[in-house]
Each structure stands twice: as structure tokens, then as C-alpha cells.
């Protein structure tokens, strides 16, 4: 691979579907972590229930509308279920319970006896025709796809999925923009800065936190639904804890507590990851797929640590407003 094509592929990934759904999920997580100061370490759990809502509905032939309702409903229920016992406690409890429950949901979906409901370890395939997502595609199939050169190319299906995911990301960003400028959003920020002070001013802190938790979770569920719509299949192996922390990296990289941070973070994150992978593949020949996957995650983990230590405000954030600087 030439350096130019590595660069082109990195750019393609940076605006591609993966970056898009990471951005969308990150908007939800940003509402939790960036604006309310909630340490939700199980965001992937919300994505999972959203995805399985759509997946199960499609498998049973209930259609996409029912699937979306199911996914949103499940995300709300999950948010309340996790939030009510933990949001009145210290932040570390929320972190522990969310990471544990997200992992538990994946294991339950994966377990053999759940196969009738979730398809077990294999999940469901061939959902595309049942979902009908690509039927309204405005992009015509074209040999060679859309794009420039050989690497910076998208298929018509990719473009359709990207259009929807980036579009929803935009909508979610606008929603967050309007919300955080409202009185409600100012309460959220005050909770992040000093929970006791907010309580002293007579705000019911737990209720605000719960609202933010459920809303961010529903945004995460939409990201999960789009993954199923794009792939036309669902399996439990995707919803692992590192996905949550990739989204964390995106939020922090872009700037936690900023409107466009998740979008910028996702684009930059995927550019860097894809570029690093291209370079590794180019320099180090007999490297297996599993090693590349592990290396990618190792780079992400190291990046998350370094970011948190050296630039907690990310690209767009101001250090003054960043949680890490604000509270001890």
C-alpha cells in the first residue's frame, strides 16, 4: 500500500459509517459524562438494547417502527433500572454497576437458552430485507462506487447509512445544544460542578441526573439501531466493554462538555486509528488480524490515558470548564 492510499483510507474511515455511529453514541455519552458528570461505563448496554429492539422486531416481522419503539422503550427502562439505585450514590457506584450490567446484557444475549429471543451466540442474519432500510436508498448502485481514487470510495449502501447516521448525529447535537442552553441544562452543569451546591439551591439532583441518564441512553440506543440497520444482522460479540471506552476516547478527544466535541473527536479518532493501522500493516508484514485488532485497542487504551492526563479538555474544550480541572 502506498502512503497516499493509506492516507486516503484513513480519511475514508474518518467520515465513514463507523465514525458516524461512534459520534452519535458519543453525543449521548457526552450528555452523561461531559454535561452532567455521570461516569456511565456501560454505554454499550444502551446501544445493545436499542440494537436488539430493532433486530428482534425485524426477525419476527414486526417492522422497523415497532423495532424503534421497542429499542427506545428498552433503553428508557434500562436507564431507570440502573439509575434509580445508583444515581443517589457516589459516582463510583454508577461506574461499577453500569459496566457490570452492560457486560451482563451481552452475556445473556449470548447464552444458549436465550437463543429463542436473541438468536444466542450467532444472533440474527439476513435482516436487510425485513428491515427495508436500503429500499428507499437515494443513491443508485454504481460500479466502482462513489469517490475519488481507489481508497477514498464508498458504496451506495455505505453512503445511505452514513447519510442517516450523520444526519441523526446532527439532530442529536442540535437537541443537546438547545437543552444545555435551557435552564434545565444549566442545572445539569451545576450538578457537574458541585452537586451539593445544586442541592442546597433546592434542586432535586437525582431527578435531573436520571433525566440526563435516560436521554443520553436513548441517543446511545439509536446508535445501536443504526448499526443493525447498516449491517442487516446482529450478534452479541460486538457489544463489548472496549466499545464503551472507544466512545469515551471520542468524547474526551473532541472535548467533553462541548456541542461538537463528539463529532470532531470521532473523525479525528478514526483518522488516527486507521492511519496507525495502515502504517503498522505497511511496516510489519506478517501481522495477523487478531494482532491488529489488539494493537488498535492497545493504542486506544494508551491514547485514553495520555489524553486524560495531558489534555483532559480535548480538542475543543476549555480547561476551565472541564470536569477534571473543576472538581477534586
Amino acid at each position, binding site marked *: 500500500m502506498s502512503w497516499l492510499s493509506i492516507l486516503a483510507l484513513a480519511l475514508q474511515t474518518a467520515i465513514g459509517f463507523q465514525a458516524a455511529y461512534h459520534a452519535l453514541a458519543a453525543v449521548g455519552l457526552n450528555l452523561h459524562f461531559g454535561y452532567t*458528570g455521570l*461516569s456511565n*461505563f456501560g454505554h454499550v448496554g444502551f446501544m445493545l438494547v436499542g440494537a436488539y429492539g430493532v433486530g428482534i422486531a425485524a426477525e419476527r416481522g414486526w417492522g422497523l417502527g415497532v423495532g424503534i419503539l421497542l429499542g427506545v422503550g428498552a433503553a428508557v427502562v434500562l436507564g431507570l433500572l440502573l439509575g434509580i*439505585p*445508583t*444515581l*443517589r*450514590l*457516589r*459516582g*463510583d*457506584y454508577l*461506574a*461499577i*454497576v453500569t*459496566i*457490570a*450490567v452492560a*457486560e*451482563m446484557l451481552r*452475556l*445473556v444475549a449470548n*447464552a*444458549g*437458552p436465550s437463543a429463542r429471543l436473541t438468536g444466542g451466540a450467532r444472533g440474527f442474519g439476513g435482516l436487510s430485507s425485513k428491515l427495508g432500510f436500503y429500499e428507499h436508498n437515494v443513491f443508485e448502485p454504481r460500479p466502482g462506487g462513489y469517490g475519488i481514487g481507489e481508497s477514498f470510495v464508498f458504496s451506495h449502501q455505505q453512503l445511505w447509512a452514513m447519510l442517516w447516521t450523520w444526519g441523526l448525529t446532527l439532530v442529536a447535537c442540535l437537541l443537546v445544544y438547545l437543552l444545555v442552553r435551557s435552564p434545565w441544562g444549566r442545572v445539569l452543569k451545576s450538578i457537574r460542578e458541585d*452537586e451539593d451546591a445544586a442541592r442546597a439551591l433546592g434542586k432535586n*439532583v*437525582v431527578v435531573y441526573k436520571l433525566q440526563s441518564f435516560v436521554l443520553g441512553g436513548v441517543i446511545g440506543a439509536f446508535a445501536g439501531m443504526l448499526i443493525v440497520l447498516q449491517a442487516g444482522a446482529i450478534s452479541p460479540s460486538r457489544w463489548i*466493554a*472496549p466499545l464503551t*471506552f472507544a466512545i*469515551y476516547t471520542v468524547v*474526551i478527544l473532541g472535548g467533553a462538555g462541548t456541542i461538537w466535541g463528539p463529532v470532531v473527536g470521532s473523525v479525528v479518532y478514526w483518522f488516527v486509528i486507521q492511519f496507525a493501522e495502515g502504517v503498522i500493516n505497511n511496516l510489519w508484514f506478517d501481522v495477523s488480524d*487478531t*494482532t491488529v485488532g*489488539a*494493537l488498535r*485497542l*492497545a493504542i*486506544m*487504551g*494508551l*491514547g*485514553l*490515558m*495520555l489524553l*486524560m*492526563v495531558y489534555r*483532559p479538555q480535548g480538542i475543543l474544550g476549555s480547561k476551565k470548564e472541564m*470536569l*477534571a*480541572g*473543576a*472538581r*477534586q
Partner: protein
Amino acid sequence: MHLPDALRSPRVLLCLVALGFLWPAAQAAAQDTSTQEAAEAKACAFTKVEAVEQYGGPLPPSIWGRLCQIQDGAAAYPAGVTITVSKDGEAIGEAVTDEGGVFVVELPGNGTYQVRLDEETLPEGFSLTDERFATLGAVKVTFGDQQAVFRMGEDTRGARDFEDYATTFAKGVRLGLILGVAAVGLSLVFGVTGLVNFAHAEMVTIGAVAAYGFNSAGLPFWLAVIPAVAVGAAFGAASDVGIWRPLRRRRMAMLSMMVVTIGLSIFARNILQIYFGVGSKQYTAASGQRESKLLVFRLTPNDRLIIVVCAVVLVAMTIMLRRTRLGTAIRAVSDNADLAASSGIDVDRIVLVVWALCGGLAALGGVLYGLTVNVKFDMGFVLLLSMFAAVVLGGLGSAYGAVLGALVVAIAQEMSGLFIDTSYKFVTAMAVLILVLLIRPQGILGKKERFG
């Protein structure tokens, strides 16, 4: 770690132990069906030595086995049953069982095969336990030949007696003690620094992987434990000096530090994966273990050793915390670091010691856990959720609480496997965790304080 809280623990423990014994006893009394399962399994067991004997010479590359069913308490072998081996839908070979029920299907070489038993050819009186398993979907042949097992006769696995309950309970205690050894460091570190360390899982894995390294380099397993624990302690101490102490100096927020531990965890886990591979590996001491009876418990020699080692380590740690100057200092720092510092305790040194202790204990827990399951790069992460459940249940920051919580979580998890499908066992731990947070958020032995 308050005295009155600690005094409460023996009573709680006693109650739990009593409950754990009474419940299965009542269950067993209700359905007194003595299992002959173990005896039957023995009667139908078939080894390679026997196979070679019956075949009359060394086995060719093949899939072999013996059909066997218990009839009137004695093993009976069906003759004339057709066994077909195929690969990717193409039939490779076929054999018919002889008078002794033995079949040997020759193969062209290693690979993954489907083995089918033709039920039409079964003589009268013989049947498969589960007809869905007339075809074994994926029999892997990696060493030239491989045994294929078809379970036959009525399923007796459902029936359980008191011994089964007792043994499951003992296995729960074993897992609980391992979990306690592994998790106590997590709680100690939280006590002295306030940090919830998600990278604790990787400390557990590092111990197990290091022990595997020393073990496969030729050191006997139980000797390899010592350097493995040293590696864990060194890793714990190094992570404090290299990462956590500088971050504490910067006065970094706890939430941000938690995210750093996550980054470290993912980084370390994937480096371990690259170094160790994705497969699971076994210690030399893990093979050739046979269960034997001790009172009502059926345990392997390893199980007993693990229980003894864990109990000794936990008692030693309790004595250290209660009776030595170091232990007193650790308790003082975890009570109030500023007050401890002003009474002349070197807080940084105590925190370093606690990190080393945490690393060493986590490594020991990992080594012992690796002895009960296999060593794998993500074994620590699998255990992490149970460790969190244990620590929260016992009370974040309480060392004794962590051990108590570990026992409760592990026993509940193992015992629940008797009543619900075993692939849902872990749900029990989570259910316990959420229930505790709803009812008693400070945990069984945790300090009462205002939470949120």
C-alpha cells in the same frame, strides 16, 4: 474497617454458612434420590488404553469410541450400530460397532468432522439420552485420533442428592476464597486512595500469565507461584510510582483517574493478548486431577490446596492489618489520610505498600483462578465483575467486607447454577449487587456515611 463493624462479621458469616447448609439439606430431604450417576459414569468410561486393547493394536488416525448404556445396573454395549463420519457434508468413512460396542472410523488426517450415529441401527432397548445429539457437529481431531462420546440411556443428571449440593457449596467456597484473595487488594486501594481501579483485572491476569511463564519454563507449578506473586507486587508498586502518585500530586479528579485506569486496563489487556495469544493454556499442575470424597464434599486435591492456601493468606492478612504497625498505619490512612499524615505516618509509603500488596494478592488470586479454569488473556476481566460485586456487597474500602462479599457472591453464583441454566450464573452476582445497592448501599461492613 471499624472494630464494631468487624465484630459483626463472625455472626453474619455463621448465619450464612448455616443457611447455606440448611437449605440444600431441606432440599435433599424432600427428594431423596440417591444418584448412581458417578458409578454409572465410571462403568461406561472408556480410555485410549482400553481402545487399543480392544482394537488389537495401535490405533490408526481415526475417530473412535464405545457405545454404552446402563441396563439393570450393569453396562451393556450395543453391537451393529452404524457410525458415519463426514466432513463438510461429504461422507469420509463408516464403521459398525462390534460385540463390545467399540467403533473405529479411519480418517485421512486431522481436521474437524461430523460424526453421526444411525439411530435406526440401534438394537432394541438402547436409546440416546438426547436424540438431538445423534450427530456430533464438530469433532476436532488434532492428535491423529479422537474419542467421540454418545450419551445413552435415561438422563440421570437432573436428579441430585445432598452430596451434589454440598459439593457445589464447597466449590462456591473455593471460588469465593479465590475471589476474596483477588478482590481484597481492590478494596484496600480504594480505602487508602479512594480510587476504583478498573485495571485490577489485569493485575489478576498478569499473575496467572507470569505463573504460566515460569511453569512452562520448567519450574514446578507450586514453586512458580512465588515469582508470579512477586511480579504482581512489582507491577502494583510500579503502577503507583509511575502513574498514580504523579496523578495524585496533580490533584486529578477521581472520575478522571477512573478513566485513566480504564485506559490502562485496555492497554494492558491487549498487550497481554498480543504476547500470550488468544488461546487458553493450562498449568502442569492442572492436569490429572480426580475428585475424591471428603466427608460429603467431592473435591480434587487442587481444590483442597486452593482452599487451604487462600484461608491461610486471608488469615495472615487479617493478622497483619490488626496486629502489626504497618497494618495499623494502613487502617489509619484509609480512615483519614490527613490525620494519619499529621500523626507522623508517611502516607506515600503506605500507599505504595498497599499497591504492592494489592498487586501481589491479585496475582495470587489470578494464579489460583487459573488453576481452576484455564489461563487466558481476559480471565481477569471476566472475574472483575464478580470482584466488583463482592467489594460493593462487602462495603467499598472494607478489607474484611471484600472477603465476606466474595464468599456470598461466589456461593450464590455457584448454587444458583443448580437451579437455573449455568450460562446465567453470572446474572446472580449482578442481581445481588443491585439488590444490595437498593437496600444497603454501604454494603454489609461498609462505613455509614452520606451517599450523594
